[in-house]
């Protein structure tokens, strides 16, 4: 049991570097992806687009002298003026899907959106492979991210601790807790690879060579919908991740992801 303030070396150089590259790359991919989405702000299941029955669609509707933005999900329509369907009045409500501040470039430009997206998709792949290669070889994946059997039993208790925003100190703080391990594993082994595979599933060139891409996702339009859903999952993860970083010692957390050094506060000791 550590009873004094310790500084440990928490994150290896490769993990820190690939983390920050990934953060930047994912932001550009998200914003350029929303630009591409805005070219046809509707999602479908199956091989083809049934224009009369999208799973999700956003549209700008003229109502009298003003433009109303609506979002329809599984046949239910919501007024999302100012955010989705029709953007801010500042730019003349020109956006059909996501607002200008969420897209790259900010104005409507599908060609530039695609250029940003595919260039950064390559960085994403190279950076992701470097991370996964390092993580397998070094044991990072097995040692730091794979939960043990006893940790898995601790999941309900860990949820309760998180809900009360209580974070471990001392030795416990030297490792990721079980919820961290599970969420990081889902992101690096499921969501991020899924983004790549569904992205490739939308490529008519790759579909010709690997029709399995169509079969596993249930068609090109399903692949596009899953691409959107997986991206949404990553956005939710990042939001929670940033929240956790902020409330569990923001400077200690940031320092550890920049320099690798992490301060372990001592556990409560009797005076």
């Amino acid at each position, binding site marked *: 049991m550590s009873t004094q303030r310790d500084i440990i070396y928490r994150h290896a150089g490769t993990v820190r570097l690939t983390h920050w590259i990934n953060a930047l790359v994912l932001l550009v991919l998200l914003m350029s992806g929303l630009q591409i989405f805005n070219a046809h702000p509707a999602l479908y299941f199956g091989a083809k687009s049934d224009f009369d029955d999208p799973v999700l669609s956003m549209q700008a509707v003229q109502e009298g002298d003003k433009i109303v933005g609506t979002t329809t999900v599984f046949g239910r329509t919501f007024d999302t003026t100012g955010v989705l369907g029709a953007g801010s009045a500042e730019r003349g409500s020109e956006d059909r899907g996501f607002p200008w501040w969420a897209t790259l*470039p900010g104005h409507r430009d599908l060609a530039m959106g695609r250029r940003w997206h595919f260039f950064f998709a390559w960085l994403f792949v190279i950076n992701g492979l470097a991370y996964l290669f390092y993580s397998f070889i070094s044991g990072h994946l097995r040692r730091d991210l794979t939960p043990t059997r006893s940790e898995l039993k601790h999941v309900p208790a860990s949820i309760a601790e998180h809900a009360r925003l209580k974070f471990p100190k001392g030795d416990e703080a030297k490792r990721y807790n079980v919820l961290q391990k599970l969420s990081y594993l889902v992101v690096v082994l499921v969501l991020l690879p899924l983004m790549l595979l569904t992205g490739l599933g939308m490529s*008519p*060139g790759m579909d010709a060579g690997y029709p399995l891409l169509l079969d596993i996702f249930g068609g090109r339009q399903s692949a596009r919908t899953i691409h959107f859903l997986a991206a949404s999952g990553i956005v939710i993860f990042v939001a929670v991740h940033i929240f956790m970083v902020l409330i569990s010692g923001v400077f200690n957390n940031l320092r550890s992801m920049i320099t690798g050094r992490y301060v372990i506060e001592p556990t409560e000791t009797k005076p």
Partner: protein
Amino acid sequence: MSGKIDRRGFLKRGLAITSAALLGGCEGLSDQPWVKRVLDSAENLTRFSQRTLVSSSALAREYAEDEISPKFRANGSTNPDDSAYQAHVANGFADWTLTLGGLVEQPLALSLADLRKMPSRTQVTRHDCVEGWSCIGKWKGVPLKALLEEARLKPEARYIVFYCADDLGETGTEAGKYYESIGMIDAVHPQTILAYEMNGETLPVAHGAPLRLRVERQLGYKMAKYVMAIEAVAGLADLRGGRGGFWEDRGYEWYAGI
């Protein structure tokens, strides 16, 4: 202690600079020529990778007839505002001819009846628009390979260019007219056809009558409608905007396999 404050200051400044650069910078960066060039380099990497990973003879998926889209969306031009073209529509393209020239031993001029007499291929394929949607349709037409064999390409021919009737650029000049180009791998691919029928009927005007190119392993904008003339060339730089197609000249990728 002071070291800690410095680090905090550094982190704060770093965060502020990064977020400002991201929010404001990318917008301006998009207009920089060097940024465009760097971003463009990904297109070559993508094309090289797909050409390496996908066999040049791999076929795009063909679907069952009951999967054909009830409504096939028509994008781009849907009714070319051109008097010569409209005259052809009025008499059912009876005296229309397709010309095939450039770097060939035997230039061709073929009527629609000539094309219909040639061997044909019928395929039910998925059309993927660059906007994101897909429609499935049945296409019947002449394999481009058959035409190129008849015209006998010269060895220096590297691209096949398609000139169209529609003035999508609305400039009123040749410069605004639609055109497209493909490389030899796609030109001789068995599914690359010049379609004169769609879903069992004569190709409608909205979908490119009398002749539309099908390049099934690339996006919809490669599949030129209203094809009037075909030319074999050694390079694309001297044609119009120099990037090999109407949309390519407006910033889209020449290789549209993704």
